[in-house]
């Protein structure tokens, strides 16, 4: 683990990405203590004020502090990332591993379905789930997780295919290990590097997708300080109070950029074969 961190820290992009991600995570965890104001405290006399010392990101249309809402938004985005990616892994990893291990027709049929699903935009798949369950933050997380399942299935299958032909798997079989034991103890742990890389990148995608759903009115609902939901309202005041749009958007950009850089760096370090 410490070698991995050392190698990551020598990678310029990953170093920047890790720093941004760390700041994002700290802001998310410590939101109640680091946010200067209550994110839902309205001050109708002080709405749409530009950046100042007391409100560095200004105030929104209801006079709420944009910085505090952005910090609380980090907490929501972090939750979205963990829940969606966790759900996607829970569905996709067993599916991909089984598909590779069973092979034959099951594998071909499953992967054909996965290919088709992967070709659909995540946003469209998420909208289908929202159509069934209705809008809201919980459903948005579920929708994004479901939309990412095929990606994990495909990736896990590829990784299992690569690992299963290696000598140590043969050795485990020769020493009498059962199939389940081989998959769980020997194959899957060796599939972790590409999965870790992908999870970092999909964490970023999940945050973006949740912001998209929020922006379209299908994700978190007001007054929840979710970044996309905040921007949906801010759009109405683009001419008079552009800061309400600029800061939350910039925060999404920097956070997603950081996660992407971290993911790219992890790939360079952990999985050089597939590195671009």
């Amino acid at each position, binding site marked *: 683990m410490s070698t991995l961190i050392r190698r990551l820290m020598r990678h310029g992009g990953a170093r920047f990405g890790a720093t941004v991600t760390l700041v994002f995570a700290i802001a998310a965890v410590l939101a109640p203590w680091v946010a200067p104001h209550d994110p839902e405290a309205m001050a109708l006399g002080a709405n749409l004020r530009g950046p100042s010392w007391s409100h560095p990101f200004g105030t929104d249309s209801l006079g709420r502090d944009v910085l505090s809402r952005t910090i609380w938004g980090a907490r929501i985005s972090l939750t979205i990332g963990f829940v969606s990616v966790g759900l996607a892994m829970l569905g996709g990893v067993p599916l991909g591993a089984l598909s590779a291990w069973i092979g034959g027709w099951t594998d071909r049929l499953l992967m*054909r*379905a996965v290919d*088709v699903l992967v*070709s*659909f*935009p*995540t*946003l*469209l798949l998420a*909208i*289908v789930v*929202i*159509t*069934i369950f209705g809008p809201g933050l919980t459903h948005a997380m579920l929708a994004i997780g479901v939309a990412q399942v095929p990606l994990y299935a495909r990736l896990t299958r590829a990784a299992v295919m690569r690992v299963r032909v290696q000598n140590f798997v043969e050795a485990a079989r020769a020493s009498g290990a059962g199939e389940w034991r081989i998959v769980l103890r020997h194959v899957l742990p060796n599939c972790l590097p590409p999965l870790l890389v992908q999870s970092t990148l999909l964490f*970023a995608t999940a945050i*973006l997708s949740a*912001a*998209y759903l929020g*922006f*379209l*009115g*299908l994700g978190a609902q007001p007054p929840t300080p979710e970044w*996309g939901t905040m*921007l949906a309202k801010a*759009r109405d005041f*683009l*001419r008079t109070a*552009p800061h309400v*749009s*600029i800061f939350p*958007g910039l925060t*999404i*950009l920097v956070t*997603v*950029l950081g996660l*992407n*850089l971290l993911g*790219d760096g992890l790939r360079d370090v952990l999985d050089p074969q597939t590195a*671009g």
Partner: protein
Amino acid sequence: MLRLITSRLATGIPTLLAVSLGVFAIVRCIPGDPARLLAGDFATDQIVEELRGRWHLDDPLPVQYAAYLGGVLHGDLGRSITTSAPVLPELAERFARTLELAVAGIAVSALIGIAAGIASAVRRATVVDYLATALALTGISTPIFWSGLILILLFSVTLEWLPAGGSGTVRHLILPALSLGLFGAGVLARQTRSGLLDVLGQDFVRTARAKGLPERLVIVKHALKNALIPVVTVLGDQFGRLLGGAILTETVFSWPGMGRYLIEALSQRDYPAVQGAILVFAAAVVVVNLLVDLSYGALDPRVRAE
């Protein structure tokens, strides 16, 4: 080539059927009476019963699906709950607008992305490369709707050069196309760069250089042609993503396309319209992928030979 076309169509048609089955399932998965959902909250009992008969909603699911599919194949996607107009004509018009936007978007992606990728690979490890790589990554990380808002702020509000919304003229198309295309440009730039770097290291490029060809010719005639094959796949893939992104861009720029139609229908719980829009979106993605597969065969003789 004929064999490739038949084999791809043979997988494309079942895929389209699967898509129709998926879309058919959506309304049946929503809790409640499908007839009531398809008729709307304010429909009279008579209308609900009429719909129930027309879509065979009391029959077993396979019969219902057959009725639905038969309707779709005859161009009957049902009637919108909010306007009572048939869904298909409206969707056809909206689809044309979305296609216009997506084609303009993909043109922006290709122009900026491929150019940046080439510059990056040819000038590897120079300021140009670092700058192009950073810009590509920023493009990928920028929320599509936010780049739209910033473009409006810059070119409509501050400089007053271009309209902030609406459609009809080329001037209306520029900002939405830019906003939509920038995301794909980042993806394409990365793919072009890594593809070109791969090819530049191969023997035939060394031979071309060794026989004294000017560098420009080596890159344009020999390297680029080979490097662009995977780029075409990414381009096709991006086209599918652009259709998804269009949902956002259309909302930001009040563009009267299919994406906005879908979101408006969803907010009004207009399920026949939602169902129709999702079906057309999904079918468009499948068809685009089919075309990409075929173009792949046209570009690369090795694929045809498979």
